[in-house]
């Protein structure tokens, strides 16, 4: 009952925030016109005030792809944050904190810098998907590396994991810095984008490129929820029930890094969503992954859409990097988790 209410509230909230995101911006477009422009594509108008000029362009070509990208990236970061926390059995395992996002962005930076030299044949083969694919590979390598580094006697050790994350973030930062010395100014600018994160480059092309990379994990990961629940008790519990823990682990890592990698490839590193969202979800409705995973996707989409709206509207006419907004929202929660865990240890 309670969960139905949560699902309904979040869905309505997401719809509302999508509407606001489409209706608000530097261009003042009356809400009637926004609705008509949208319904026009389906062949009817309600208020008869649709505009075929620049307003329609702004709604259909700028705001709509951007909002959809926010929804997709938010859902991706939310659900993969929850899944990765499940597999690490730790609420602090967040894609950007343990270096997975950094792995994705480092790979993307390397591809940008050395594309003409090393990746030209690959680039012809994969075209626009090369960056997304590369980011996915980078994220996957780092996820496996961190997991194996942090494992002590088959248990993922928290402090080792976080320290490994620090090391990998520092290393990725250093390598990115090194690459910037080799890159020319134009490449430098796209490299800065990877480090900052932004939804400003959203076009229908990259939204449709992102779509499968997010939809497959969002649909697939909840099927692994039962396995993740057993993981919470211990890896041997999974075996007892007759499931293969390694298979679950690999599936989760592949699906989660697929979503994170592709998101980083289109929007750069957007931190703290993967940490904040699953935690809020657990606060709302408990730790059952059958609940946490889908709700994290929903809430991630909602929160990132709101964060993007803040970043667009707060310092007009320019934009605040979205990473600033998510970090401002995320760090207090992060500290809250730390303090709560500390109290638990004391008791």
């Amino acid at each position, binding site marked *: 009952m309670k969960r139905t209410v949560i699902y309904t509230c979040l869905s309505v909230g997401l719809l509302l925030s999508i509407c606001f995101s489409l209706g608000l*911006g530097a261009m003042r477009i009356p809400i009637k016109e926004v609705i008509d422009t949208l319904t026009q594509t389906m062949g009817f108008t309600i208020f008869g005030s649709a505009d075929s000029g620049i307003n329609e362009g702004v709604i259909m070509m700028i705001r709509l792809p951007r909002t959809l990208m926010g929804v997709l990236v938010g859902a991706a970061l939310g659900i993969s944050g929850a899944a990765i926390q499940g597999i690490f059995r730790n609420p602090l395992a967040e894609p950007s904190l343990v270096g997975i996002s950094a792995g994705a962005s480092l790979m993307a930076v390397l591809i940008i810098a050395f594309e003409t030299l090393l990746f030209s044949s690959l680039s012809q083969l994969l075209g626009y998907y090369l960056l997304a694919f590369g980011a996915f590979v980078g994220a996957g390598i780092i996820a496996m590396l961190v997991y194996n580094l942090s494992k002590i006697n088959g248990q993922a050790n928290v402090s080792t994991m976080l320290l490994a994350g620090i090391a990998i973030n520092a290393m990725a930062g250093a390598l990115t810095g090194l690459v910037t010395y080799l890159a*020319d100014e134009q490449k430098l600018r796209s490299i800065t984008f990877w480090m900052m994160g932004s939804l400003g480059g959203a076009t229908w092309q990259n939204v449709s490129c992102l779509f499968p990379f997010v939809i497959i994990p969002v649909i697939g990961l909840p099927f692994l929820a039962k396995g993740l629940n057993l993981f919470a008790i211990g890896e041997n519990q999974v075996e007892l029930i007759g499931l293969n823990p390694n298979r679950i682990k690999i599936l989760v890592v592949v699906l989660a890094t697929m979503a994170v990698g592709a998101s980083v490839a289109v929007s750069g590193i957007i931190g703290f969503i993967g940490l904040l969202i699953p935690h809020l979800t657990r606060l709302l409705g408990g730790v059952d992954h059958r609940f946490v995973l889908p709700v994290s996707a929903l809430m991630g989409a909602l929160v990132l859409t709101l964060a993007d709206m803040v970043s667009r509207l707060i310092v007009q006419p320019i934009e605040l*990097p979205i990473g600033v907004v998510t970090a401002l929202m995320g760090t207090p929660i992060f500290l809250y988790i730390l303090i709560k865990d500390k109290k638990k240890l004391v008791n």
Partner: protein
Amino acid sequence: MRIKKYYIVLIIISFFSATQYVAAQAKRIITLSSAISETVNALGYGKNILATDVTSVSPEEINRLPKVSRNRSFSIESITAYRPDLILVPEGDFSKENLYQFKSLGIRVVTIRQEFSVQGATKFIRHIAAAIGDKARGEQLAQKTESNINTTLSQLKKGSKSPKVLFIYARGVGTMNVAGKGSSIDAMIKLAGGKNAIQEFSDFKPYTTEALIKSNPDVILMFDFGLSSLGGRAAFLDLPGVSYTNAGKNKRIIEMNGPLLINFSNRLPEAIKALNNRIL
């Protein structure tokens, strides 16, 4: 490979947009660099500029305009909100996605390439004039600028030997870069009768104390805001290593207006003259 293709497409797009629209003059223009804003203004279209970027600070009537781009960070929608019919942007400042977004909105974007030479300056003026749709005035201004440059160059002060000039781009003590070969400043120093103290690398690279001592410049050149970001002249002379250079010994630290030095358009003669006066 892809970057190359992108360049070619860019060139083709800017070529077409420059030629295709000659008939219709641009009425609502957004200019996204100081040199572009100053050139459009000099062409007599200053009143058609709706908004600029943060570097467009002169003349005063341009400085008063809203700034919609800050260090190449901007929002498509804020720019679109001015309903421009022409956006003039330095080559490379808009990403492929941005160009695509403006194209799908039906807003004409012309990317302007800047070459740091006398020819580059007149080409820059002609390109902008063609984009606005007033080639005649572009020709006029280009010719005037060229003859002014020639007069200026013939009247330059000449020393016994050309001084070694080191340019430092500073944004506070932690972020200092020096200008290497092929940079705008390198070209400017040469035109003004000096010699760039850095010959080992191209573009801008981070500053180090040892490289400063090794290059031993006769003059150190900075943008005005650069010198003040380091705490002014006295604070700069106290930086490690500065006192070992000729420039430090003779206290020859020069500050100049940034937009003027990198204008490389209608104000090039003025810039050459000013820099020549200061270094010789």
